[in-house]
């Protein structure tokens, strides 16, 4: 079947069977290897992508389920040299250690901040619980979300 969908704001058409996992489509067909596979069972969240803005596990998603929909991967979160505020904050606060879980965590955090601009720690924990990280102990990740939140709100105020 011909799959038409949007990947990182770009209309994309691919010939697919429909039964491929979206993660394979992204990694193998589109070369978007920022999306990682850590368990293949939706438990670790390393494969998180945004489907119409909401975090989902791309390892539990069939290509036919994304027809007509919009996917954002880590590569699509920012353009060129620029960084999304969440990306910048992760780098700044030391929220990155081995980095394998980072793309998923960044996307989940970005989705959280789009939904709740100034989340509490509890809200963060709820929103990020689907992304396992074995290195950081999550503390610096919380700090990163807080920093990104502050920066995004400041930027919004400045624009107004």
């Amino acid at each position, binding site marked *: 079947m011909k799959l038409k969908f949007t990947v990182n704001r770009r209309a994309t058409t691919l010939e697919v069977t429909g039964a491929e996992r979206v993660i394979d489509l992204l990694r*193998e067909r*589109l*070369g*978007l*290897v920022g999306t990682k596979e850590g368990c293949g069972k939706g438990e670790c969240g390393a494969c998180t992508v945004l489907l119409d803005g909401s975090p989902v596990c791309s390892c539990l998603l069939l290509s036919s389920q994304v027809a007509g929909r919009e996917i954002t991967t880590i*590569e699509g979160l920012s353009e*060129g*040299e620029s960084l999304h505020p969440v990306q910048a904050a992760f780098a700044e606060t030391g929220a990155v250690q081995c980095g394998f879980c980072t793309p998923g965590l960044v996307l989940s955090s970005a989705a959280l901040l789009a939904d709740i601009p100034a989340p509490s720690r509890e809200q963060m924990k709820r929103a990020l619980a689907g992304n396992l990280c074995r290195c950081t102990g999550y503390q610096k990740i919380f700090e990163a979300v807080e920093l990104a939140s502050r920066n995004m709100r400041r930027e919004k105020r400045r624009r107004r």
Partner: protein
Amino acid sequence: MPAPRKKRTAFAAIGTSVPNVDAVDKVTGRAKYGADHDRKGQLYGRVKYSEHPHALILSIDVSRAVNLSGVRAVLTHADIPGENSFGTAVPHQVVLCSEKVRYLGDVVAIVAADSEEIAAKAVESITVKYKILPVVSDPVEALSPRSPAVHAGGNLCVHQKVRKGDVGTGFSQSEVVLEREYATQKVEHAYMEPEAVLAEPGENGGITVTGSVQNLYSIRRGLARVLALPLGRVRVRQATLGGSFGGKDEAMTALCCRAALLALKTGRPVKMVNTRENSMRESYKRHPYRMKYKVGADRRGFLKAMEITIHADAGAYAAMSPFVTWRSTVQATGPYVVPNVRTDVYAAYTNNCYTSAMRGFGSPQVCFGSESLMDELAEKLGMDPLEVRLKNTLRGRSTTATGQKLNHTVSVGEALLNVTKKGRFLKTRASNRKHNERSHPKKGVGISCSYRGVSLGAEGVDAAGVTVSLQTDGSVVASSGLVDMGQGAATTISLMVAEELGVTVDRIRFLGADTSRLPDSGPTVASRTSFMAGQAARRACKEIVERIRPVASEVLGCPVDSLLFRNNWVSHSTERTRRGPGSRKAGRGRAGRKRLRLGELASLCFARGVSLFAHGWYRAPATSWDERTGQGDAYFTFVYGANLAEVEVDTETGTVRVTRFVSSHDVGRVLNLNGARGQVYGGVAMGLGYALFEEYAEQDGRPSLENFDEYLLPTVSDVPETEIVFIENPDRLGPYGAKSLGEPACEIAAPAIANAVCDALGMRVRELPLTLERVRLGRGLSRKEKRGSAGP
């Protein structure tokens, strides 16, 4: 067949004949050349060429290209983060033209797309408006004040000179004075592998390029400058090189910069591979020279003075022209003692394809000039060509044209005698004369000789580094900042490491260069690799041996200086002489050990904390140069060689067949016999093409050919049987006495052939190549511009 060499007992590995260490990859087709590197998700880059040899750019419209589906980036000069130019001598070579185009190979825009096809389509859809300017195409006219300027500072690229003695006095002492003009053509390197590169975004915003690069460090400099990155973030790696001959330097810098710009812009790997047409159009060539020689000699044939004026066509950019022409000034007189010399070499900018380094590097042109001249002088004096040469050749303690007193064994005479003896020069010459009176085709025999400075010389301070790492199992990894480009550097350096550490070559891995892992070792040019990298490798090895000796001595219970490292074993040297290192009955160490595998020794050393890793750095001996007078010790040592060619010329058709070739070179020491022979065979073939067929002709800045259908290279049937006589006068500076060979083998083939042709014809042709027309009619045909060759 080449003369058999006696194996020297002093060495284990040096001088043996081993296959190139990369031979298996190449014969199995598994070697990975520039275009064989691919990455998932890579894009394909293409260039938009200038449509005019000389024009001002009024506007560049990329809007249609940008909107094509599958196009990921379209870049122009405005997108360059750093400087929009590079160049070793004059950093003015433009990456993406902004105001002006200077030759047809200039590029105004680049495209990255999902496929080659889309990229090509995108390039076509770019429109550029120009204001056409008059074309500068003649290097002599270019220097006239009336000529339009290719570059803002005028068209003089460089003026090199030598002033020795007083030529006026010299000519006044001369009984014979000859004035002759010679010309050589522009030729293409014609490496079989066109330029190719894969650029990948690297760590930390850096860039990694892998491709068919010859001089990694100069390309890295260009990339860092254009991309505004620190050198440490720019990583250049060499793919297996499918030939270079000096050709994959600036042309590759431009390609690498363009690919890298696209890769950094898109965040994806970008591959760019030149078609042969692109390569022919854009890549630089060997300088065409117009040479005026005036020579004076006494009646006995001794040279008194030489005055030489040369005009070189630099083309659109300076590239290596200042260095190429400098070597020409040093070698212009040929390997002769000339008391009074005045040489001027001018290189001028034109709107022709630019010229730069090519095997020989400014010497093949002047070798043709000086060696044709010597034959003409001989004829004028009524002497034979050998006699007049032998009278004048440089000898030990002679002083060169640049005033350098030679303090090593000077063997140009020996080389001449070698080839003339082997080729029975005088006898053949006499019998040819008789034959030619009656029969067709006409036969001729010619000789040539040269001296050549080793390495970079006073062009720059010369140094190189090699890292050697002995592994705990006794195998070795060596890596060099100078590269193997097909000339066999990997093998030569491996042999030296084998010699120093006493390992067999199969235990050594030679690593391709990587700019981030090895310090800048200068360019892999000027036949300097064996010499410079060889010395550096030996230093590294010696350092390791120094560190591990004490441990070996302790284990074997013998003095440090009696240890012998050979064939992956360490033993007492005294034992070796009696029974050989493999003997069981060899002497007994303190620990009851007689000998030790190198691997055991290495593990033992590692466990004791001895470092098995060393970096050798070798700085070449000093050279000197006085810009004003062109006097000085131009090179720290020289090599010498002589060639002899026999030809048959069909005077009805102009067809020339080289029937025999004899080549003799003093290389100091043959390191790898196989490799050395290969360099000579290849050099002769290249010189033959230069002499007989090859010409990259241009008219008003437009080339008249674009591929090998019209650019003729020697085929297997054109190449003569070549006999080789190596001379080994070990140089006190060289590794094991070795000097160099790669370029000498090439520079004097053409004059030997030309002299032979002239001998057969009984007529002098002073212009290369000796095409059918020149041989038959005494002049060349002018070529018409090729259809479509100037298209986008």
